[in-house]
């Protein structure tokens, strides 16, 4: 029987109940969320359960959502069941002040460098990682460069309209200035 998204969802809900939530299927891939303290337990379940068998870690990365109060950093896992050829994605959200996530290196060797990379760029602290040091950047660096507070261009420039050069979406994950105003320049204030 081919592994269907619905079946995986039922299996997960039967075991973890309310602790897995936010089920979606963007472009056909089952995506869900879990609590940060459960990430390892969930991965172990997905790995060991014969009916699921997600034994291949395709990818692991992090995303920064500055506007999500208390859950600013997302760690995204892509798992693959090679036999059934089924992919899933799950996420855990952690606060930026205490970005602790359990390391998956005990389950997947592949997680080693991927977690180091996520640490290097986003500062996610993978608890239990054997060698959590920077991988792409220099050791002396004391910030995490892929976070959204380090934009590529000088944000104080007003001669450039943000909306015309890259950023400035309609669905901006609430990325706003502290006073609630949008980061893009309103149409009325644009230079003639």
């Amino acid at each position, binding site marked *: 029987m081919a592994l269907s998204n619905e079946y995986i969802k039922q299996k997960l809900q039967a075991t973890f109940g309310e602790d897995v939530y936010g089920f979606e299927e963007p472009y056909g891939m089952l995506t869900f969320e879990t609590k940060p303290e459960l990430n390892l337990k969930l991965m172990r379940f997905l790995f060991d359960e014969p009916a699921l068998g997600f034994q291949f870690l395709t990818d692991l990365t992090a995303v920064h959502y500055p506007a999500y109060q208390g859950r600013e950093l997302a760690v995204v896992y*892509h798992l693959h069941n090679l036999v059934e050829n089924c992919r899933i994605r799950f996420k855990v959200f952690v606060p930026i002040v205490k970005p602790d996530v359990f390391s998956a290196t005990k389950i997947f*060797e592949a997680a080693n460098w991927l977690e180091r990379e996520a640490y290097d760029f986003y500062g996610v602290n993978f608890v239990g990682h054997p060698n959590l040091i920077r991988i792409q950047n220099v050791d002396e660096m004391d910030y995490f*460069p892929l976070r959204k507070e380090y*934009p590529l261009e000088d944000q104080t420039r007003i001669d450039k309209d943000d909306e015309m050069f890259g950023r400035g979406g309609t669905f901006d994950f609430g990325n706003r200035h502290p006073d609630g105003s949008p980061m893009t320049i309103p149409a009325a204030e644009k230079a003639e």
Partner: protein
Amino acid sequence: MSTTEKHITLPEGSIEKTTTKINLGPTHPATHGVFQNILELDGEKIVSAEQTIGYVHRAIEKIAERRPLYQITPLTDRLNYCSSPINNMGWHLTCEKLLGVQTPKRVDYLRVIIMELARIADHLICNSIVGVDAGAYTGFLYLMQYRELIYEIWEQVCGARLTTNIGRIGGFERNFNNIAWEKLDKFLAEYPKALKEFENLFVRNRIFMERTIGAGPISAERALNYGFTGPNLRAAGVDYDVRVHTPYCSYQDFEFNVPTGTTGDCYDRFLVREEEMWESLKIIEQAYRKVQEFKGAEAEVFHADVPEYYLPEKKDVYTKMEALIYHFKIIMGEVDMPPGEVYHAVEGANGELGFYLISDGGRSPYRMHIRRPCFIYYQAYEELVKGSMLSDAIIVMSSLNLIAGEMDG
């Protein structure tokens, strides 16, 4: 020394056993100037290895967060520069998935031709470099002219050779011209013979076999745990291939085999790449035939009809108002992407190359992450070389086909 004399045996512990640490790279010729391996040696035997990377890190993922889709295209060419069209197509396929663009069959087949040529170009370099690192320069010299020929085909299609920038959302910038087809004819006619000669030079060569058999082996289980994909995984005996498992670009229309090895050592990796080149030739021939079957107006199709995303041809931009408007809108990034997140994987020459794209509905990705196969392979390097000789360290590295541009991202 006469046979009556006795060997002098020193008492146990009188000479301290020490290990030496050396830096293999980053300036060693085999480490491409960017991989540093700190090897701990006991004599010539490797006791431990520590790999450091990051020497060419260019923050492509960060740069992509400020750029509209088309301005990210040139960045993707600079990942695996041995087979840049595959990276390029991978990116455009991801964009098409996000934007919901369907491509016509002829475009798919043309893309397959380009991607398989890229795979051959990549394997050709990798295998001949494995030969060079084993001390055999001849094969490298013999095959290089065919990589050149592949570059000439790309040059006819897009005007560039190395960082091709060949794709567009929906298809190609221009159609294949007659010279491109002629060169492809030439390639299909001549390359099999050259590849056979290359094989004769290496596959049963005693020295080459001694150097590669048993060097850097990995079991299927370990390879999977390490996240290996592509030829390196197949050499360990797992027949996972994205082209077969999750077909894109109409790969399901083609008949080809997925070659596998058994031991996952350097020799098997070499043979798997060798076999894959034959399979790629088979695919190209099939695609070539399929392309020729299109008649009339269909035979001229080289992009999908999506003016809001497809960058118009230059001659149209100069002569047609609509094309100029669309060109301007697309280049300035005035075309919004739908919000959503998408992961799309292609079978790169080196393994599964995946693009993970999160869009917030703006003009550039909210987050773009590239699953780079080289990055995944290199962390297994210590396990592969531990306990083997120093000379094996080089050949293991080249047989993994590590490309610095892709690894550092």
